[in-house]
């Protein structure tokens, strides 16, 4: 179970939050011109990286505000949470622990807290 740092309320248990999937997804411009496959991509396709991932959470059973987050999906470590109007952090600021695209992290999934 995760402890999530809500930018408004501070660290709270994951059970208070709901996940909103990938963050910073932009609706395509020119809705009349673009074709079915582009629409399909916008509607159905989301990033699904093993490693660093921009995602959205909402503090459902708290302040009910949405915010963004960078999490490492290979370990579930939450690296930073930030408000919707804040600039998205550069992923180069974080160390990805996955050495090969589909390999396992060195510490084993979910064990980063033990290492620290």
């Amino acid at each position, binding site marked *: 179970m995760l402890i999530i740092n809500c930018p408004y309320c501070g660290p709270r248990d994951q059970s208070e939050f709901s996940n909103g999937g990938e963050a910073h997804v932009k609706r395509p411009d020119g809705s009349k011109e673009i*074709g079915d496959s582009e629409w399909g991509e916008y509607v159905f396709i989301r990033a699904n990286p093993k490693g660093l991932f921009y995602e959205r959470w909402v503090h459902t059973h708290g302040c009910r505000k949405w915010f963004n987050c960078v999490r490492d999906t290979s370990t579930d470590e939450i690296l930073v949470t930030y408000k919707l109007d804040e600039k998205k952090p550069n992923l180069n600021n974080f160390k990805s622990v996955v050495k090969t695209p*589909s390999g396992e992290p060195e510490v084993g999934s979910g064990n980063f807290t033990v290492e620290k």
Partner: protein
Amino acid sequence: MKKKYSIFSLAKNALSGHKEWPKMWRSPEPREFYDVIIIGGGGHGLGTAYYLAKEHGLKNIAVIEKGWLGGGNTGRNTTIIRSNYLWDDSAHLYEHSLKLWENLSSELNYNVMFSQRGVMNLAHNEHDIKEIKRRVSANNLNGIDSFWLSKEEIKKKVPIMNTDNLRYPVLGASYQPRGGVARHDAIAWGFAMRADEMGVDIIQNCEAHQIRTKNGTIEGVETSKGFLRANKIGVVASGHTGVLAESAGIRLPLQSKPLQALVSEPIKPIIDTVVMSSAVHAYVSQSDKGELVIGAGTDSYNSFTQRGGFNIIEDTIRAMVELYPVFGKMKMLRQWGGIVDICPDASPIISKCDIEGLFFNCGWGTGGFKATPGSANVFAHTIAKNEPHQINSAFNLDRFASGRLVDEHGAAAVAH
């Protein structure tokens, strides 16, 4: 030489203390070039290689696997098999698979321990009843055995179930007698052994790093054992399929999440069918060893950690204890998670893509085990012929542009 298993071979090997069993498959070093490389040595991947060799006469095939055979989701599921899906497309696909299951032990001459003990899907409210009855009728129209059970009939089959004294009372269920469970390792090992006998190279501890393409055609795959050239590549890597697709520049509509399961301490036979409930989210069957095999749900967020959140387990156990108060004091022995790749319409993708020679069999989400032989069979056809089998033509990638989805959120037992 074709390995044969019988009561006599068992007796013979018992005399030598089971130390003389022959190796079930070779462990060759990879060759430089293959006609077809299958990425992923689970049931679906090994089955694909088996059917490619058996039905399509291809011999120069490799299956590469990051870990050990069947160590991914093939070994992490709750082994439930059924075909009571709502839409024609899915019903045909899962029924094709169920029919293959029924004959698989004799076809492979290897006991996959397919036990047709029946599968029950519970209804807990008015809407469930309508939805499940509709599904039963749809199943019957597709020639699938499925019928409605009243509460009294459920009680007769599963006396330990608490049907009345709980928050969401049990009002009835659908029942598919031909459904059941099978042995997860056996399906992987059986396919592996027979594919190996036909010349398929099964290469374990060989992780695919990157799929290489050139001018829209497949070149091969970079692996931890070097670069392997291939005419065709089939990716059957469940949760990691999206990662590999990305390496070839293909974006798939998949989200990877941990799906959990757990088993209890072994007890004497107490439940002789499979009972599933999507409304309160608990499903259970009893293994031949006597353990209760319990399926939990997926986490709400994307993750590749093969463990899952504890709150998911809590929810499932709560529902289990309410439905079966007699299990209240049992101890759970093991819990684990597998990374499932979930499609927006809860249906799989068995399809070619824009890159020539690259094929995907993925998106099985929370219910791929039941489909293992059927999926492998039609995927082998798709790879060999460069076009889908009639059964999987609806499960192409184009549906996410055309909008012709196969929405199976109702029949997929685990809430996606």
